[in-house]
């Protein structure tokens, strides 16, 4: 599966300035995404997990330049996205689409479902009107909705249905990459499974590559080929699903995995309880950002930033303990 590289992210950084004082000068930065690098292959699903505030959504949005990056490069099919002007970027976005977290906020309440699904095609001037109408009907069917629903408004749909509309909207211009920003977090568990299965079906049919952002490890496990773990704006571990779930290396990944509930009452599990809260990204800890909550932390962790290294084939981690 992993032959062609679709996306390459190199040292991506996104800092949000904190303004203060009378003159509104920048007095600091929120380091939402701090030096993240990874590669995505065509046709795969890369899951990104992390607590809220770990910068995973910001990373997804910065990758397609919904936010302007502070530093770094993103190559999409070999093209550096950050060299385009804002206007050119609008055209380039055709190849990458986003599915959003909140199905109640991500659809314009004043547009019908058909208008919403048609809009990307209108923006990119694809097809004529009747072809677009056909395409809308076809897409509605593909995501498991009746074609007649096109004339309705978003408020008449349930969360799961709206998320299907969001998928149809993203698919309407045949993108190669879909960044799914917690697409099922706002849904009921039963509906989550349906949407995830739908996403899987669509992936096979349209040869999509997913960047699947979530905070739920079990959801990510079901869909992903590889999984990356983010903490405080950094990737701490990235590996094949199998390697990561069976042999997590980073203490943070271990703690996260130990918190996944297992539906077996007889299985006694040792849970690793993390002390304290996630620190402020405005003032991240020195050295390894995880050291204040890490039970293995050494003096070295407090001072020196761990490097992002490949410790086994396709298994990346940033931790001093693996030396």
């Amino acid at each position, binding site marked *: 599966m992993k032959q062609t590289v679709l996306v390459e992210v190199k040292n991506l950084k996104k800092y949000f300035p904190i303004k203060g004082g009378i003159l509104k000068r920048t007095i600091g930065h929120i380091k939402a995404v701090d030096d993240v690098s990874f590669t995505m292959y065509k046709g795969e699903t890369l899951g990104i997990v992390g607590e809220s505030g770990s910068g995973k959504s910001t990373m997804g*949005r910065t990758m*397609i330049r*919904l936010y302007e990056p502070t530093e770094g490069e993103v190559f999409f099919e070999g093209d550096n996205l950050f060299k385009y002007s804002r206007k050119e970027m*609008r*055209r380039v*976005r*055709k190849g990458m*689409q*986003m599915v*959003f*977290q*909140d199905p109640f*906020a*991500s*659809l*314009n*309440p*004043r*547009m019908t479902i058909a208008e919403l699904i048609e*809009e*990307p095609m209108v*923006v*990119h001037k694809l097809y004529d009107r009747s072809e677009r109408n056909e395409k809308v009907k076809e897409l509605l069917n593909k*995501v*498991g*909705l*009746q074609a*007649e*629903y096109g*004339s*309705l*408004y978003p*408020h*008449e*749909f*349930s969360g*799961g*249905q709206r998320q*299907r509309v*969001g998928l149809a*909207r*993203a698919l309407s*211009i045949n993108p190669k990459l879909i960044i799914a920003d917690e697409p099922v977090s706002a849904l009921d568990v*039963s*509906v989550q499974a*349906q*949407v995830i*299965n*739908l996403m899987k*079906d669509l992936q096979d049919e349209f040869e999509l590559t997913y960047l699947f952002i979530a905070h739920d490890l079990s959801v990510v496990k079901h869909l992903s080929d590889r999984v990356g773990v983010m903490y405080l704006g950094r990737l701490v571990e990235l590996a094949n699903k199998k390697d990561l779930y069976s042999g997590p290396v980073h203490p943070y990944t271990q703690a996260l995995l130990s918190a996944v509930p297992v539906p077996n009452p007889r299985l006694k599990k040792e849970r690793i309880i993390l002390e304290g809260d996630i620190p402020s990204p405005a003032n991240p800890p020195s050295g390894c950002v995880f050291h204040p909550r890490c039970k293995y932390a050494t003096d070295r962790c407090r001072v020196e930033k761990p490097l992002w290294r490949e410790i086994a084939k396709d298994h990346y981690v940033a931790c001093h303990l693996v030396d």
Partner: protein
Amino acid sequence: METQIDTRHSASKSLNKSKENTPWRIAFRKFKRNRMAVLGVWVLLIIVMIGIFAPYLTPHDPEYADLLNTNGKPDKVHWLGTDSSGRDIFARLLYGSRISLIIGFSAMLFTIVIGTILGSVAGYYGGKIDNIIMRLADIQLNFPFLLLVMTVVAILKEINILIFVSVMAFVSWPGITRIIRATFLSLREQEFILSARSIGGSDFRIIFRHMLPNAMGPIIVNATLFMAGMIISESALSFIGFGVPQPTPTWGNMLTEALSLRVLQYEPWAWIPPGIMIVITVLAINFIGDGLRDALDPRMRKS
């Protein structure tokens, strides 16, 4: 396909009545349920009708001064008597609704257009443009409204309705601009705007297709309430002689009669009717505005 299970419930119910479920229809249904607002619409309609059909409701010319019959008491010919220049008060009352409504409406329209353009640009682009527009608004807001209008009117010497309306709009754009900017600022952070940007939509498309339709609620509500305010301002200005000049009848300059103590004390028919008309009109518009506010507020949507 197994993924079709959940698609049947909520949407299928509304499918057969889909025509009735556009957001505007829902708002209209809610508006109709608000009795005071509906009453306001009827009252306003009647006042508009009075203005339109004034020539058929009274034989008198509102501007004709019968100097031999000043300060006349109400009688069969002059139902509400005559004013200090001998003009028929009833006729002036009917014709006055024209001017008051026209001024209120056009000043509102003018202000809303300026406010919407400036407010949406400031709210959407933010940064420097926002700063410039809003600082201008702040400066403008530092001047008391009436004083500023009086000054401009005094400088201009000759006043007609168009100039008067322009002056009012020019002086009162900051309030509306602020409201619309605030609406745009909050809309800008919504996910569906991000979604519009992620599909590659232009600024133009985002403003006109996504933001303005969703800002229409606050814009309409504020426009309505603002119109009531403009009618009061016109009356106040005309009352102190800085509004529409005589002999054009407006409810405001009819109240000028009450400046004379004798009229105030002994001839209430000269000033109570225009006062009542102003109150009724403004109340009706405000009720409509409140009704619109409730109907268009998406947070109170019960469909």
